[in-house]
């Protein structure tokens, strides 16, 4: 279909020898005349001329002087646009082959002379793996692209890209516009190495931060050794830095890393930016946006359909609005074919985006001027200004009209014919008569792949057509169904699209053939207009954009609860028939017979009010739990990876939980930093984090950190003996690091040691996963050696054996109510643990480490009444005030006291009773969960899903493609969960 005219080759390689004939140096000009030329999306000229030579535009305008030796192409009635640019491409570079997993973990780099981490490869150069692929190029040219920025899509820092003109003529010497056209990055590990670190998104983020610090340090000549990676990174720091985020959430994450490192990334999004457009806008990041809109699900099987989530279904409905939403919010973005099965799908998907409201001008910008500008190549590509590459499209009309034909795509002055301009557009209805029979011929589809429908009277007759070299051939089955016979027609259109030629009748006789083209512009137009009109209702985005999300974020209210049993957790104890006033997000008053006219009054007679439940040990609402790639990962932080869309936030609210500590897992002795959040369902991830949050870090001991269930662990430590040495070593190093910093001598900023130094400096608290008494005792002794206290032992199932020592050390305990028997080290775990530690004067909390249990923590606390006779008031404190104390947030939360945050729960019954339900869960005066509202939301979800099923059925009936159903599986993360790991045992 696509043909390239080699004879029009302009270039000559002056200094190359010629052995195949005489030197041919074409110095002709080429001019496209009489066209509507889009010099830029906003600068459009009519009857213009585009003059170019040697692949570059010499002049463009309405009164261009055409030199003598000019090859002129008349493009009357045609449109000329700059060819498109795809700045996120792997064109010509083979997909890296995944290195098979090894039995044994690999902790060291596979190479030397480079950065210590294999996933950091700024020294890579796309061209070293580049092989021009003319088949791929043809597909892109056909889709309208002239230039792509290609790169090796592998690793975290992937090296520099190459800007390639899709010039099928000649060699790379002409196609390479730049071999230095941007530095590419991602959060994804390289598949060609097995080096463990990083295993998580948060690890990738921390690694990037450290690399930037190291590059800066290296640039000052402070390194004693050679590092080609850092040298390359420094060398390319002024290139556009293109980050593959791949989702709205990762846009926010990667932009944060960039901001902290003084870099504004240009970010590849995921097409889901509309879900939190304001946050995306706030990044100020230019974006590259894929338009791989999902097909409707095949919802005919109602059993399977019930497995679809509202979020999955909404994505089909809402995603096509994404480009429009981005444009409406003034976000700079380029479009890419990335994520599409083939560039052939691009046009159709772009048409969808336009149908959903993206303006044509924005679409054209996103394909031409914006990518050129983002690549800092506006002087070479992206428009049809003088001096730029002669990369342009000739079309039959408005390029974004579905009927428009792209005739030619010129790249570097080389012509690529997609559809012959000579082929007159004969699509439409034609009428003709043969043998006194009247026929109607309808021609439709792509001009090069015409489809026909021939009717005679009421009969539809079988027919086939080909349209090539401006000759139309028709094979037509006659009405005679017994003797299968054919009429063959060959004809050519005239300027009025009437066809003239001959028909060869079944009897072999020729007859003249003349048809009349029926001008049906009006009809066609109105049909087009109907097509263009959006028939699907676009469902509103909620916060978060899944089931149970809010249509509008709820606001803080002034609330007066009357006549409740109030569990203050203060010296007042439990107050009967008491009122609580909540104002401005805080507890304004507690007492009897309160009144406040502006407040919404809630009768709480017979009900109980407690402080919101606090879970010291949670792994919900996060995209990663473990960075397992090293034995210490103090540089990573859960704050980087909060997932505010996790429905477990809502479910925890339904269990009365208001604050949680999301801890790093227990894969290594020194884990990552925590996130302490409030469960403000609907808010953006960063708004969940406590303001001035106390700093915490996870440590871990025992079976998990010594990789007890690895068949051949090679990572130090493999014994409890080694665990101690890891700590002593790191604290010693952190001490030395501290001293070096204080000395004002130059030092390499090390994010890992920074966090560990904070521990020694008492600025960061340890919450340590622990089970057996020996190791508990050990960590306390190590801490004492370095003159600080362990803040919390979490799990601490043998805490009861060393409660006296813990008391002496001054550490708190956050334990399970009754878990045991899941591994060897919990053999002596007893449900009386909390009671004994409490009796010995420790601050005791009960935690969940589990998305199900966390929504019943009041019940877990109640078990302490059974196991060890703890008083009910104290038991409730195990899941409210005590975890608040352990987390150093008890100034704000954990008890009901005037002036504290209004984080409260209204219970239907005694809060420690198995029969109690949370009726309202309130954070800072905002009702995030309400039993009554929950009922309404359920009905709303059902309704919306039925609506979406109907829309999808309609789409299928209309003949649109559908996709098979996939079941979204909730991933429940635990202490030892690893990103991307599918099957795992739960070992807490």
């Amino acid at each position, binding site marked *: 279909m696509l043909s390239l005219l080699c004879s029009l080759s302009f270039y000559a390689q002056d200094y190359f020898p010629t052995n195949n004939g005489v030197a041919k140096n074409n110095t002709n000009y080429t001019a496209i005349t009489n066209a509507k030329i889009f010099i830029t999306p906003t600068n459009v000229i009519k009857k213009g001329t585009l003059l170019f030579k040697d692949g570059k535009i010499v002049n463009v305008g309405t009164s261009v002087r055409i030199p003598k030796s000019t090859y002129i192409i008349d493009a009357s009635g045609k449109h000329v646009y700059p060819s498109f640019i795809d700045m996120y491409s792997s064109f010509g570079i083979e997909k890296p082959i995944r290195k098979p997993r090894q039995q044994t973990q690999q902790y060291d780099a596979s190479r030397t002379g480079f950065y210590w981490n294999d996933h950091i490869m700024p020294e890579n150069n796309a061209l070293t793996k580049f092989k021009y692929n003319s088949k791929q190029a043809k597909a892109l040219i056909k889709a309208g692209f002239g230039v792509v920025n290609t790169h090796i899509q592998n690793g975290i820092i992937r090296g520099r890209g190459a800007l390639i003109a899709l010039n099928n003529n000649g060699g790379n010497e002409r196609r390479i516009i730049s071999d230095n056209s941007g530095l590419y990055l991602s959060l994804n590990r390289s598949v060609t190495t097995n080096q463990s670190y990083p295993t998580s998104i948060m690890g990738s983020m921390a690694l990037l931060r450290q690399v930037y610090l190291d590059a800066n340090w290296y640039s000052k000549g402070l390194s004693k050794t050679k590092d080609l990676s850092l040298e390359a990174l420094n060398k390319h720091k002024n290139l556009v830095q293109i980050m593959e985020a791949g989702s709205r959430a990762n846009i926010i994450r990667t932009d944060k890393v960039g901001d902290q490192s003084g870099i504004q990334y240009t970010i590849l999004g995921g097409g889901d930016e509309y879900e939190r457009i304001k946050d995306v806008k706030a990044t100020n990041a230019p974006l590259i946006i894929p338009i791989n809109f999902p097909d409707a699900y095949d919802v005919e099987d109602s059993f399977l359909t019930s497995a679809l989530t509202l979020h999955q279904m909404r994505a089909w409905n809402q995603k096509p609005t994404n480009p429009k939403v981005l444009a409406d919010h003034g976000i700079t973005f380029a479009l890419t074919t990335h994520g599409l099965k083939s560039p052939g799908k691009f046009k159709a998907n772009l048409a969808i985006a336009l149908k959903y409201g993206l303006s044509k001008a924005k679409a054209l910008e996103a394909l031409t001027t914006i990518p050129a500008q983002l690549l800092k190549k506006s002087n070479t590509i992206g428009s049809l200004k003088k001096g730029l590459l002669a990369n342009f499209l000739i079309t039959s009309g408005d390029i974004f009209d579905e009927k428009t034909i792209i005739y030619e795509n010129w790249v570097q002055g080389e012509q690529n014919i997609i559809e012959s301009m000579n082929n007159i557009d004969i699509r439409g209805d034609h009428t003709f008569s043969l043998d006194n029979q009247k026929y109607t011929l309808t021609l439709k589809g792509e001009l090069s792949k015409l489809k026909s429908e021939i009717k005679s009277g009421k009969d539809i007759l079988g027919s086939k057509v080909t349209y090539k070299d401006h000759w139309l051939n028709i094979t037509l089955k006659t009405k005679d169904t017994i003797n299968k016979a054919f009429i063959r027609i060959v004809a050519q259109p005239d300027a009025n699209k009437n066809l003239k030629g001959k028909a060869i009748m079944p009897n072999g006789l020729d007859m003249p053939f003349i048809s009349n083209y029926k001008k049906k512009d009006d009809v066609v137009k109105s049909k087009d207009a109907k097509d263009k009109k959006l028939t699907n209702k676009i469902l509103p985005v909620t916060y978060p954009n899944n089931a149970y999300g809010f249509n509008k974020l709820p606001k803080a209210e002034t609330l007066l609860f009357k006549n409740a049993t109030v569990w203050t957790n203060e010296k007042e104890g439990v107050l009967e028939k008491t009122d609580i006033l909540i104002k401005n997000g805080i507890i304004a008053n507690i007492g009897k017979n309160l009144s406040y006219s502006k407040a919404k009054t809630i009768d709480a007679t017979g009900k109980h009010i407690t402080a919101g439940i606090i879970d010291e040990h949670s792994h919900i609402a996060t995209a990663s739990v473990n960075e397992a790639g090293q034995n210490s990962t103090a540089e990573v932080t859960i704050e980087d990876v909060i997932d505010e869309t996790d429905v477990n936030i809502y479910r925890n609210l339904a269990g009365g939980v208001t604050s949680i500590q999301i801890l790093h897992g227990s894969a290594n002795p020194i884990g990552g930093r925590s996130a302490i959040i409030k469960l403000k369902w609907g808010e953006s991830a960063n708004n969940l984090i406590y303001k001035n949050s106390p700093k915490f870090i996870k440590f871990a001991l025992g079976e998990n950190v010594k990789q007890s269930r690895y068949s051949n662990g090679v990572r130090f430590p493999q014994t409890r003996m080694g665990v101690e040495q890891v700590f002593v070593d790191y604290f010693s190093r952190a001490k030395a690091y501290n001293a070096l910093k204080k000395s004002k001598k130059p030092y390499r900023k090390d994010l890992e040691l920074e966090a560990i130094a904070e521990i020694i400096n008492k600025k960061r608290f340890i919450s340590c996963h622990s089970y057996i008494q020996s190791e508990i005792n050990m960590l306390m002794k190590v801490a004492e050696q370095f003159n600080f206290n362990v803040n919390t032992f979490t799990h601490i199932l043998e805490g009861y054996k060393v409660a*006296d020592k813990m008391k002496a050390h001054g550490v708190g305990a956050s334990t399970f109510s009754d878990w045991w028997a899941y591994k060897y080290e919990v053999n002596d775990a*007893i449900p009386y643990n909390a009671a004994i530690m409490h009796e010995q004067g420790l601050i005791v909390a009960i935690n969940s480490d589990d998305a199900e249990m966390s929504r019943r923590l009041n019940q877990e606390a109640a078990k302490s009444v059974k196991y060890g006779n703890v008083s009910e008031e104290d038991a409730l404190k195990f899941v409210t005030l005590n975890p608040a104390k352990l987390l150093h947030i008890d100034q704000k939360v954990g008890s009901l006291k005037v002036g504290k945050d209004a984080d409260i729960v209204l219970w*239907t019954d005694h809060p420690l009773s198995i029969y109690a*339900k949370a009726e309202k869960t309130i954070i800072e005066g905002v009702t995030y969960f309400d039993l009554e509202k929950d009922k309404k939301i359920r009905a709303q979800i059902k309704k919306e899903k039925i609506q979406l099923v109907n829309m999808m059925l309609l789409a299928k009936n209309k003949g649109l493609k559908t996709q098979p159903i*996939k079941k*979204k599986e909730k991933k429940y993360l635990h202490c030892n969960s690893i990103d991307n790991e599918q099957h795992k045992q739960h070992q807490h």
Partner: protein
Amino acid sequence: MKKLKFTSILMLCCSILLAQQTPAPKQIKDIAIVGATAHIGNGNIIENSIIIIKNGKIDTIGKSERPKLNDQDINVINAKGKHVYPGFIVPNSTLGLIEIDAVKASVDNAEIGALNPNIRSLIAYNAESKIVESMRPNGVLIGQITPRGGRISGTSSVVQFDAWNWEDAAVRIDEGLHVNWPKSFSRGRWWLGEDPALKPNKDYDKQVTELNNYFLQSHAYDKNANNHLPFKATKGVFNDSKKLYMHVDYEKGILDAIAFAKKNNIKNMVIVGGREAYKATSTLKINNIPVILQRVHSTPNSDDDDYDISYKHAKLLVDQDILVALETSGDMERMNTRNLPFHAGTTVAHGLSKEQALQLITLNAAIILGIDAEYGSLTQGKSATLFISEGDALDMRTNILTHAFIDGRAVNLETHQTKLWKRYSKKYKEQNKLVSKP
């Protein structure tokens, strides 16, 4: 000081000697429990009751109006203000088959291979498991020990939780065959580079046909032949000597499994798990199929589900007159099983009455497991397998057992855990005494 040392040595010895609790001897003397609220297990209660236990059986149960008891012939337990319940029963349990999840050497719950009807859980049941003994203080006294894995996991037996060995523990031997119905969704083999997402199981029909053929083959098999142990073991489901426990979650699977049982003329089928049983209530009801419902304390299957779907599921079925029992399988299932009463309690917060909830873990379970002639309720003539609690046994705060009996034997309520509790409590008590008296 010397004395103290001696005591601790003594205690250490004791704790080694008494690693497990000693099973109680046969009941000799009659026992009367007087004044308690008796929760019968069938939905009724008797306040201020009297229960007389003779030869391991409930001899009398009724209102305690004027008890005339001779203390010399009978042990009288004054249980005024307390509550008596039938021993709780847990179906579909792996208690005694695994001691420590993470220690492979202690794991005996799933044999290799897909079709293991002849595999018998009973003989691997560790009557001396430290986890089993920890059931008793919470009132869980009977369990169905169930093999796991494969398409046909094997054959289960019902045991009581106070015995020297599996033979003594057995209540009903080889009572049921456990089949894992083909899943509606299957996962790509991610380690081979396939998309790991759950997709409709394209082999579903094939797997159902295979299972059906296996049952047809077993049906045709000569029961006196001895050359195919698996077929032989399957045969029981056709002559009602074994129940068929169909482990199935999705609505479609449940409906198909019911059709399968009908087609194969299997009269005694039980749905186990049944995550989506609430969607199939009418078919379950018409066909009289009981459900052993998955762990109440579970997260919903889908993001969109009601947050309390697992909590209220039992109510949704009970309201349709479906016979429901509760099970606790899943993550950490063995140690979690002692929370069975609280799973039942949760169903009360979500709609059932307390006595209905109690039925789920007593009489209903007994009927489903086919042991209701002897167990499951406080009924004259039934086994005296019951316990006394200080208060409401479905609530954590008041589930505090003073006595438990299995077949009239007064069961020891100490465990590895209570011993450690007492040992360390004592340690601190003495230590603190020393501190306060210098």
